[in-house]
């Protein structure tokens, strides 16, 4: 009913019937080769090359980033080796004295006495400190 009244739709139907008539004479041919295995293979390649760092590192700069990472690793490794305190004994060092005070002798003496409790203390060096006459605490510190 509609096709009788609508010229536009009738025209479209006629065009489709013409196309179907043209195709009815054509014999179906199978493709010379199946394309799917190739497509699937390329997709699997893409899946295989995907890495966790791919979103972080642009593909163009992967080489540079890897080089920098290796450099950082080598420097860190060298740093750990250098940090380890395999250091030879150094010469005696002098230092600034924060305050000259006769109390220091008393407390150094007492500390040397107390340090004798340590089995690994240098008992002979402590003996040199203790060999001097033991000072007495001051009566009152002059200000």
């Amino acid at each position, binding site marked *: 009913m509609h096709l009788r009244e609508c010229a536009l739709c009738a025209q479209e139907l006629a065009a489709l019937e013409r196309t179907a008539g043209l195709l009815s004479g054509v014999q179906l041919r199978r493709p010379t080769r199946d394309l799917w295995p190739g497509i699937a293979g390329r997709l699997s390649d893409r899946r295989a090359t995907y890495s966790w760092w791919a979103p972080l590192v642009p593909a163009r700069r992967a080489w540079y980033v890897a080089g920098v990472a290796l450099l950082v690793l080598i420097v860190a490794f060298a740093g750990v*080796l250098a940090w*380890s*305190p*395999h250091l030879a004994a150094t010469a005696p060092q002098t230092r600034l004295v924060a305050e000259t005070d006769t109390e220091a002798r008393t407390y*150094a003496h007492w500390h040397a006495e107390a340090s004798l409790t340590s089995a690994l203390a240098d008992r002979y060096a402590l*003996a040199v400190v203790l060999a001097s006459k033991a000072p007495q605490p001051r009566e009152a510190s002059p*200000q």
Partner: protein
Amino acid sequence: MRPRLAVIVGLLFVVVLLGGFHVIGRQGDQARASRLLLSASESGVWPPMSAAGTIRVFSDGVWRETSADFDYAGGLTRLTMGLGPPRTVLLDDGRRMWRLDAAARTATAVGPAESRLDWARLRRSYSVLPVGAQTVAGRACQGVMLVSRRTRQRALAEWIDPTTLLVTKRLTYDADGHLVAATELTGFQPQARATREALAIPVDWHKVDLEEADVRQITMKAFRDLAGYEPRPPGRLPKGYRQEGLYLRSCPRGCPYADLRYSDGLRVLSVYEHRPCGQGRGRGPHRYGRGGGGECGAGPPDARPVLIDRGQAKTVRQRRPDLMVVATGDLTEREILDLVLSIP
């Protein structure tokens, strides 16, 4: 790109593998160094030997150096130092150090202390690292170094003769890593100069032992009963330190000094607390006849803690209205200041 990445990954793998081997090898070296250090510290009995050496120590702001003769026999060490005349003669029996006075026929305990080794605590506080072999006094020795886990600074280095387990060289460092003492044997005598019997304190000598010393260990309650106040332990201690005990000292007037003693397994830390004489109990006649010179521990309060650093150990003093607090130990400046300020 893929082959290049494979090379990079391969290189990284090699580096990690080498690092792993290095770490494993180092742990093995550390274990050997620990065993050597422990054996040497526990040994203490050497074949009869005599040696010459030098002792250098940074104390009272200057370096002091002295030559010394060492005689070893049956666990005893006699040390004759070139300080004097007369030369100072000490006897180390492994537990105590004695000063020998041949004229007075007296042996006096040097310091109210017996040596103790808490190996577990030492290992918690320090790493034991090998520092390679070195010939000391003509003997091939293995070096061992203790490094503080807290400060990452070296604390002690020893070179040990693996055959006799004798320490032939010892370097001591303060908390900042500065060398403060060095003892080194320079040569051995072909024949030992003495036997154990010759080194031991003669039986007819007078021995001034620890019980007669000016300082003795005491309980908190006994100190409170004696002094009338209780020492206040610091609120903040450096990591690894634990209290060893409370000792009693006396000022020239006889007023009690509390000596709270701590250790990290190697180093000793003392916190002295002293009330001005007269505030607590125990005030007595002046022992040295200097009356009228002021009161022990008295004086204007310190506005800020006073730092005294003259070698061996740092001292911080803070005189408060009711209490003088002094801390002495091998700590960094910040640690020792924090400690004193944490005492309530």
